[in-house]
């Protein structure tokens, strides 16, 4: 996958990123507060499913922009999920680092 294609996928994610980033942050915080990962993972999967349903049902017109850049529905969904998984993991890592730093201090 070329750099330009990754940039375009990031642009697609950026268009809808507020909710998934917020949900990921909440999930990470809840995990380090209460310790249950299963509920957070299910919350994340459900919120991603809802957002993708919203995009493909109500923002269909903008998808033609990405079709013109040679993406298919499947490649957009896959790209979105991979980027979101990275963001989700990043929040967990950031919180882990914050907790570790607080313990050190």
């Amino acid at each position, binding site marked *: 996958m070329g750099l330009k294609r990754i940039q375009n996928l990031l642009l697609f994610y950026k268009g809808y990123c507020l909710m998934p980033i917020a949900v990921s942050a909440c999930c990470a915080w809840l995990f380090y507060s209460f310790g249950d990962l299963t509920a957070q993972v299910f919350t994340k999967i459900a919120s991603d499913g809802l957002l993708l349903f919203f995009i493909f049902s109500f923002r269909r017109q903008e998808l*033609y*922009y990405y*079709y013109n850049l*040679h993406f298919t529905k499947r490649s957009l969904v896959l790209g979105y999920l991979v980027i979101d998984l990275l963001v989700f993991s990043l929040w967990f890592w950031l919180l882990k680092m914050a907790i570790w730093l607080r313990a050190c201090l």
Partner: protein
Amino acid sequence: MAESVLIAENIFLNIGNKEILNGCTIRAEKGNVTGLLGRNGAGKSMILQSVFGARHSRECDVFWNGEKMQNPCQKVGFINYLPQFQFIPSHLSLKMVSRQFNVVISEILAFFPEFEADVNKCIGEMSGGQVRLFSVLLLLFAETHFTLLDEPFTHISPLYVERLKGLIAAKKEQKGIILTDHMYRLVLEVTDVLYLVKDGQTTLIKERSNLALYKYVNEPV
């Protein structure tokens, strides 16, 4: 000039139980502008979407120089498509959009210097007509073998339409263009080959006066 011919045939499309397209065929080639005319709901946009590959049709065989294309929109540099509606995300700037489509913005500005002041503006900050015009220019300037334009003249002011007609005439030397619009006089002016979409089928119009025979217009044109 290398030959570049697109043939789309056996286009069958149903929406629910309603049969919209029933075995349409169109042919386009570099050096020609192909026009589609038809009443509202005849299926012109559906044909373009099926050829582009974004709409799942029951059947649609697209051939480029005799080679069958499985997913036309996935092949880099083959085809692009202007839908009827605004499709560029409103948070992107003209400059960024041009870069993503590998279009040199100065080429657009050479034809339409009016965009000079808007280059760094976001799409959402521009008027509907400006966005429409920019979308048409973007796809015409993008390096593809074919460009499909669904209502390229709609929402565009008369002076710009005149220049756009000139641009389409110039660009057809580099790529095949298929367009449809309800402003049929403009379509007749820019097209070399004309199809009428009626009753789910396409008919090649050899004599423009036949449009009245097919009851597309009242008076012969």
